[in-house]
């Protein structure tokens, strides 16, 4: 082989070698095995890397998740004769009601978050949620309820933050308090689902319940790679940002696009401000990342209600270092730690908001 030929072949050969190296150095992403189930009034997707367990084991474990979530839902339904329904029935008659051991930890956590968030999240609004009809996808209204109806409920006890909890009872200031744990229970349910999978020997999984999720382990040698959907998607702009979820991290988003109706050109959504009894104004979505999924769940709601003005204060009060808010104009506000983790996928005006010390 003469020198001229070597020189001519050198560049193509080098490119081929580089392509080969790039292909071979891929860590070999395992396929994800996905299983669906319907629970908590939404679609739940369990994703497990194919290398983490046999498909049969995954299917059986997801079946157990379904059983656990059905039991969880019965316990936490605000109406009926489940544990929470029974508590609400008692509180309708009396200011003080016996508190079942099974309910106490989550209600205590919800009260703590309600107090720290300045009642921007508070599960005491069951009757307001019912008045707006957002407790039932088929029942919510075509027009907002009358101000007199809302104000009448605001005159009754409607804040868990103002109740008193002890080892065995919950005491409201007066009869009439009713709890709807919809803003926090999904977080706990997602965590429980991962517990069930772990008990079945699965160490790597991601549970997504209606768009909110928690990760366990990783996918092969990389973290879980997820994206946040744009709150106002268009044909060419579906996703807002990408994010790597590490072992144990949960990401929850509350948005005004989930459950809503429109009346006289105005959108009325399900995220009620507990202090006013009306849909919170000023945001399209709020996202919180935390290793406690219940905290992420409640914080997403609290941050949505807080809006831009109280975003930093509320995030700091809830010890949320990773938070994102999209305001009514589509502008993004992110904590420094969240901004560091996000890879923006759409052209977004981002303001980094430092949290108060």
């Amino acid at each position: 082989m003469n020198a001229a030929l070597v020189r001519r072949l050198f560049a193509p050969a080098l490119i081929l070698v580089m392509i080969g190296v790039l292909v071979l150095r891929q860590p070999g992403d395992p396929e994800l095995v996905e299983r669906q189930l319907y629970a908590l009034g939404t679609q739940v997707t369990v994703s497990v890397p194919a290398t983490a367990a046999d498909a049969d084991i995954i299917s059986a474990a997801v079946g157990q998740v379904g059983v656990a979530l059905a039991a969880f839902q019965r316990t936490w339904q605000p109406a009926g004769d489940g544990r929470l329904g029974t508590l609400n029935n008692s509180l309708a008659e009396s200011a003080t009601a016996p508190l079942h051991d099974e309910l106490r930890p989550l209600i205590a956590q919800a009260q703590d978050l309600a107090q720290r968030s300045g009642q921007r999240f508070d599960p005491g609004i069951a009757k307001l949620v019912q008045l707006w009809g957002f407790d039932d996808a088929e029942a919510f209204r075509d027009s907002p309820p009358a101000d007199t109806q809302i104000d009448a409920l605001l005159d009754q006890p409607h804040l868990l933050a103002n109740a008193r909890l002890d080892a065995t009872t919950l005491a409201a200031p007066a009869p009439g308090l009713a709890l709807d744990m919809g803003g926090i229970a999904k977080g706990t349910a997602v965590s429980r689902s991962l517990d069930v999978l772990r008990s079945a020997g699965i160490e790597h999984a991601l549970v997504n319940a209606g768009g909110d999720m928690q990760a366990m382990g990783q996918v092969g040698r990389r973290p879980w790679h997820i994206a946040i959907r744009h709150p106002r998607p268009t044909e060419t702009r579906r996703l807002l940002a990408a994010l790597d979820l590490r072992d144990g991290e949960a990401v929850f988003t509350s948005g005004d696009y989930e459950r809503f109706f429109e009346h006289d050109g105005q959108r009325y959504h399900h995220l009620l401000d507990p202090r006013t009894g009306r849909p919170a104004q000023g945001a399209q979505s709020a996202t919180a990342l935390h290793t406690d999924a219940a905290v992420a769940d409640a914080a997403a709601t609290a941050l949505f209600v807080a809006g831009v003005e109280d975003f930093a204060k509320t995030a700091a009060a809830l010890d949320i270092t990773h938070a994102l808010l999209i305001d009514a104009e589509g502008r993004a506000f992110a904590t420094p730690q969240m901004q560091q983790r996000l890879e923006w996928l759409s052209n977004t005006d981002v303001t980094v908001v430092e949290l108060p010390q």
Partner: protein
Amino acid sequence: MTTNPQRTHADLVVIGLLLVGVGMAFGQWWAPQAGPADTALVFVGGGERARLPLHVDATLEVAGTIGISRLQVADGGIRFADSPCRHKLCVRAGFLRHGHDAAACVPNRVSVALTGGNRSYDSINF
């Protein structure tokens, strides 16, 4: 005008910078969005009921909890053409065409999720 075919170090630096620039521009402007999907999975109550290729126009009637949801596949997308729910949020979601797109008629427990396309993410938060 004369040209010098001899490549110099300066040329290589310029080419290198251009390549870096193109790479950065790609990352900035063509960051992966979900591409067109090829299949729609239809679920009822969490169980898979059907798989529909998106390149074949079709209509599917699905019996859910409260009635029949009518799904229409057309132009590479799928939509809820009708559903027995009251507020028709599923119908208002319009056509779904991209990987990771999904819509549900919650009252009827019928949902649609798209697969294929540029599946760059393990899951979507919303």
